[in-house]
């Protein structure tokens, strides 16, 4: 059963050897040149399980991988039951929101400390399970890097996702994320990344020059 059709892949909820699993298929993109398309899909299919495994090593909950097939661009993995943080954020109290975001910040901190850049940090890519765990999913755009630039872009994307989807409490959420991040990464590394985020926001040519997103 198709449960999500994204830009990157389609997710199917299926029965597999008596388990409920997610089958992630990177379907051919008809807009892309077949050669380019095959290369991108195979590369991301091979890379994603590696990053997911690395994340587990540094203590970040991620789905269990059961099978990888680069030629078909398919990954079979654990079905994580729960709600996306995107859904949850609007349903909980301010205190719960701050607490949740602080924990998300800690998880991002652990990833970055372990040299992993998620690459697509949005609230749709975080699942809150019934037992209260936050599980990070969709490492399809992740990369292995310890550069401040990559960390900055990663958090900048998180910030952007908050401001475009949850503008009402984006500010407080991002602050909480940074608090959690700081707990793991330490003050010095965090300040360095924050400085980089500001630089990224100010970067570019005249039109694409960045400013802090507006307060709404």
């Amino acid at each position: 059963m198709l449960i999500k059709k994204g830009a990157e892949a389609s997710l199917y909820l299926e029965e597999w050897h008596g388990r409920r699993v997610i089958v992630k298929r990177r379907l051919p993109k008809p807009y892309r040149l077949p050669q380019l398309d095959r290369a991108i899909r195979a590369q991301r299919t091979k890379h994603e399980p590696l990053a997911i495994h690395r994340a587990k090593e540094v203590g970040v909950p991620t789905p269990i991988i059961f099978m990888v097939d680069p030629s078909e661009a398919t990954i079979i993995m654990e079905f994580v039951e729960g709600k996306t943080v995107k859904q949850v954020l609007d349903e909980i109290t301010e205190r719960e929101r701050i607490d949740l975001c602080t924990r998300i910040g800690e998880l991002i901190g652990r990833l970055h400390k372990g040299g992993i850049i998620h690459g697509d940090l949005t609230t749709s890519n975080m699942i809150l399970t019934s037992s209260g765990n936050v599980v990070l999913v969709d490492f399809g755009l992740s990369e292995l890097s310890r550069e401040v630039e990559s960390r900055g872009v990663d958090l900048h994307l998180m910030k952007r996702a908050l401001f475009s989807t949850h503008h009402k409490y984006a500010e407080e959420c991002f602050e909480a994320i940074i608090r959690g991040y700081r707990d793991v990464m330490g003050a010095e590394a965090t300040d360095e990344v924050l400085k980089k985020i500001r630089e990224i926001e100010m970067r570019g040519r005249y039109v694409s020059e960045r400013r802090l997103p507006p307060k709404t």
Partner: protein
Amino acid sequence: MSSGRRVSTGTLRCLGIESTADDFGVGILSSDGEVLANVVSTYIPEKGGIHPREAARHHAEAAGKVLIEALEEADISPDEIDLIAFSQGPGMGPCLRTGATVARALSAYLKVPLVGVNHLVAHIEIGKLTTGAKDPVTLFVSGGSTIISAFEAGRYRIFGETLDIAAGNCIDVFAREAGLRPEKGLPVAAVVENLARRGRRFIPLPYVVKGMDLSFSGLLTAATQLLREGRHSLEDLCFSFQEVVFSMLTEVTERALAHTEKPEVLLTGGVAANRRLQEMIRIIAEEHDARFCVVSKEYALDNGAMIAWTGILAYRCGLTTPIEESQVKLRWRLDEVYAPWVEELKGG
């Protein structure tokens, strides 16, 4: 902006001035959305890219002629203008200031209100007016901008944008590095498009997408290096270069579409004229059951009509710009603009 003195309910005529970069444009629209005139004069550099001061000089020289031509095309006299709108930003300082000066002078002389308009909002609004799109995900790709935007809660939010150079700029610089020149009135990007059509062999180039953001500088460097090495034909390089640039743009647009579930995709900006990009965006629109809307060249390139139309929209919500607040804003972001008129239009 502040509240207007009067908000007329009858038909208004607005004269809009565009001067953010290399185009000086004057458009005249009526408040029912009819384009009465749309005249543009473009500064063409002798070599290289746009020099802001030279472009501004061109605008100052062209202003009178373009204004008169627009009034003649609309077949109205200046005193039939109810409102002056101008592009207040973002853009190149000297160019913006030239347009703003003309706008202030006209507003004072004709004793009609002045409305400062955000150039990026104007691109989206004229796109909606001319294609009938109501609530689209917009991909705006030009020499100065690469933005994926959709309307959420009072503002056009930015879902993705370039982290370094604009896609159009990337194409232009690549073309200049390849020694290409504008041909027979075709912009240099169209020359690249024509060469790309004859390319057969795909040469791998850096493909950089980060979430919904894009980066083109590495791709430009790699493509330029391959040009210098001379191992590949120019046709193959143009072909591969275009395929990678447009695939990246299409991927992030599809991601924004999947995320927002909007019913339409609007493609605009100078690069929107490219057939291959249109084809790609059309495919993803169809896959997500969204209507594909591409803005015609006249309104996808910088023009005065889009400024006039956005001026009317803002004015009808009681927004005007007093002279003392009319200074140009070089870095005015799309998501800084409060756009109260959008909700009203969505319904109608």
